[in-house]
């Protein structure tokens, strides 16, 4: 699990303007609420333990206190409402040019990722991992192929549901480079717990380099073992569900594998992308992530190594 270390997934560790706005609102609310709770409990204790005067406290005095307390409550609530609406406006305000536009489509239980550009040949398709440039706005469009999922990068922004036949849009920006983990936040069935992805916030040049890499088709080396692996892949049922651009594989049921080896994790953030894990996944994915839609693939043992070499070469 070493490869997965170094990420963060937290709403109280903001790395962008959106999450920072929310974080400040949360702090304001927290202190107000702590103060109110302490006051109520203090009055409760005092009311239970204070020495009783003779005669009893007159009801007029109690009435005055209750009315005052209610008025203060209304004042506090109004203040909180204004703070909430101001934060909401700050989140919704769009003041940027040249955003990166990414469509994330939820599947049971993985994420399809489309980087959208005005020219179709610029588009990038990948899965279960996104890279974003630090300091540049990103527009996230969330939708779903099957059931409702939810896209949530707590370090960057609140969540937005991915609903079939709906496209929900939010924008966010990462101001600090880092690896932000996110996972599905709307119960979506058996493997809801294993539907994560890593978000890499990188400096602009590094991001552009990554993007250029992803745009190209499969660039596997031409070694004999790799070529043999490619043949095995193209003759196995893999290509019914997966796409590897530049080969005959063009299935769309499963994640795009064109640059599989460039990704950090396998099976939507379930485990680090190592040859051993990949081999385990291909031969018996149901043991690792029960219920996922990939059937066990019966690869003869002598074919497994070339196949892995091929897949590992898809950088």
């Amino acid at each position, binding site marked *: *699990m070493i490869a*997965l270390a170094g990420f963060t*997934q*937290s*709403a*109280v560790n903001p790395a962008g303007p959106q*999450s920072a706005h*929310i974080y400040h*609102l949360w702090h304001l*609310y927290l202190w107000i*609420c702590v103060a*109110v*709770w302490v006051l*109520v*409990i203090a009055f*409760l204790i005092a*009311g*239970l333990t*204070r020495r009783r005067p003779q005669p*009893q406290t007159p*009801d007029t005095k*109690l009435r005055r*206190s*209750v009315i005052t*307390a*209610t008025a203060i*409550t*209304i004042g506090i*609530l109004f203040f*909180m*409402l204004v*703070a*909430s*609406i101001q*934060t*909401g406006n700050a989140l919704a305000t769009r003041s940027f040019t040249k955003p990166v536009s990414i469509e994330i489509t939820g599947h*049971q239980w993985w994420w399809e990722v489309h980087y959208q550009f005005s020219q179709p040949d610029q588009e990038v398709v990948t899965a279960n991992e996104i890279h974003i440039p630090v300091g540049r706005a990103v527009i996230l469009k969330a939708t779903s192929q099957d*059931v*409702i999922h939810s896209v949530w990068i*707590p370090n960057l922004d*609140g*969540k937005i*549901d991915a*609903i*079939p*036949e*709906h496209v*929900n849009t939010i924008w966010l920006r990462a101001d600090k480079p880092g690896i932000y983990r996110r*996972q*599905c*936040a*709307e*119960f*979506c*069935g*058996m493997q*809801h*717990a294993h539907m994560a992805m890593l978000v890499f916030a990188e400096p602009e040049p590094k991001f552009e380099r990554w993007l250029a890499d992803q745009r190209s088709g499969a660039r596997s080396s031409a070694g004999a073992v790799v070529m043999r692996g490619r043949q095995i892949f193209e003759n196995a049922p893999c290509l019914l569900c997966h796409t590897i651009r530049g080969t005959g594989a063009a299935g769309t049921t499963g994640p795009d594998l064109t640059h599989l080896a460039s990704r950090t994790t396998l099976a939507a953030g379930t485990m680090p992308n190592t040859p051993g894990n990949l081999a385990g996944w291909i031969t018996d994915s149901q043991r690792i992530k*029960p*219920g996922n839609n990939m059937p066990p693939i019966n690869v003869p043992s002598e074919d497994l190594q070339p196949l892995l070499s091929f897949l590992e070469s898809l950088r």
Partner: protein
Amino acid sequence: MSADLLSTIDQYEIDEAAAKRDLENSWRAPGGFIGWFQEVNHKAIGLRYIVTAFIFLIAGGIEALLMRYQLAIPDHRFLNPNLYNEIFTIHGSTMMFLFAVPVMEGMGIYLVPLMIGTRNVAFPRLNAYGYYMFLFGGIFLYAGIFLNMAPDAGWFAYTPLSGPQFSPGKRLDFWAQMITFTELSALVVAIEIIVTVIKLRGPGMSLDRIPIFVWAMLVQSFMVVFAMPAVMDASGMLMMDRTIGTHFFNPAEGGDPLLWQHTFWFFGHPEVYIIFIPGTGMVAELVTVFSRRPIFGYTAIVLSIISTGFIGFGLWVHHMFATGLPQLGESFFTAASLLITIPTGVQFFCWLATMWGGRPKLTVPFWYVISFFIIFVAGGLSGVMIASVPFDIQVHDTFFIVAHFHYVLIGGAVFPLLGAIYYWFPKMTGRLQDDRLGLITCWILLIGFNLTFFPMHWLGLHGMPRRVYAYSANSGWASMNALASIGAVVIAVGGILYLVNIFRSKRDGGFSGPNPWQAGTLEWMTDSPAPRYNFLHIPIVSGREPLWERPSDEIPLVIGLRTDRREVLVTRTLEASPDHRYVLPGPTIWPFWVAVGTGIGFTGSVFNMWWFVLGGFICFVPFVGWFWPHRNINFVPKMEKPK
């Protein structure tokens, strides 16, 4: 009030012994095994609701423990994902549909007639029918578990996940029909309580003298009447999508999955108040009695409860802030969600004022009220936080929400309920509970509760989503999860001690006498346990706490009601002035058979919708028996004739 009907007992010579004998005879319980199914007395039915609901609470608690064991350590392989998803679905469904609502209804059915001074609920046979529907609904869901047909799409069953394409098999049909069973039962109880409160109050109990718990049950019942049809519609549409190929929620055919969320939460949010409002009513009663003074701000509290009932219907969208609604609409629901804090706040201030101006006595029920304050205020405040859309979209569907709603539901309903049961236990059994054990139990529950649910706030803020069966070791969530799991065990210990106290006290507890707490409301006027006819004579009510105004043997009484049949006094709505006498029906087995017929229809419709029609025909026969007219109003069922 007509003089011939109402008078004090001094002016008439009444043969008390004969009246008692007659009442005991005409309100006699049906005997034997068959008699159990003929029972229509509100105390028996109410107690059945409470006991059945507690059995489901234990089941739900065991499910909670299994989940906490699974989450106690990262990557735990104790439960497989299917089993975990089934368990959290059943836990939520059990707690909401089979425990929280029915137990509050049971308390209402049991206590309302006693507190307003009448002999039974308005429609005793319908009442029995409602209980059987609840019982069958619960058995039906749990039978599904043993048939390996347990639902697994969450207690909210979001479409399209719960639709035919993604949840094949019968699991979700069992869930949807369980809803139909229990919500039908809830509607029955609601009608029961509304009519009972409006028409059967003791003479003189004008609207401004109704005990606050009864007000709470009345408002809750009106909410049920408007909320439950929404979820029955929703579950009905889901059933049709699943069985006869309609497309209400199918996006591929022009349906919309969000329609489900709207209809479900239009019920689901009022549901929270349906559970919580009776809790506040109980708190108001306990605060009054143990502050030893009339409640401060009666009118303000009642108006707060009523406005909570109204505003509760305007908040449902705050469960859907992440679905991408227009910003203006979201701001409206933020404002509405904050608004509901005001009536709740007013009630809290009035309770505090009551304690401030009274002479509080720290009994065990009062400790439950104190726990309620500690927990519910925290839960209410985290509710104020998540009313804000920007904050909510961060913590929505995380453990922060799990923490929040357990704070409001357990804090706002279960703690008051446990206090209330402790408080009314002498009226139900004639025995007192062990105070020392009771106090220890309350403290264990308070500590265990906070140990379990407070860390969940932290977990949610640190990114842990709800409804995950596993999390990895490098997530950093392990220690807080372990703490929560330890807390769950502490709660379980508290729950066991609570039951031990009940069983021990029921057998060996000291006799309580009619009014062990020196309370002021009518139910404490009669014997403990209350006789089946509740009151030898219906009391005339002259204030909110009649027993605090004069000793119970000086309270003016209604005479002139016949004791040789099940006669009650119907009063007018506002002033509760006497209107007419009315004979309530006696024991009968027909409601049971109607419930069986309905049950066959509902159960069969899981497999084929035509069973629904067949069920209607099956119900026809027992309905004929139920409504068979009697020749004269003096009819006393055969078994009740004096020997």
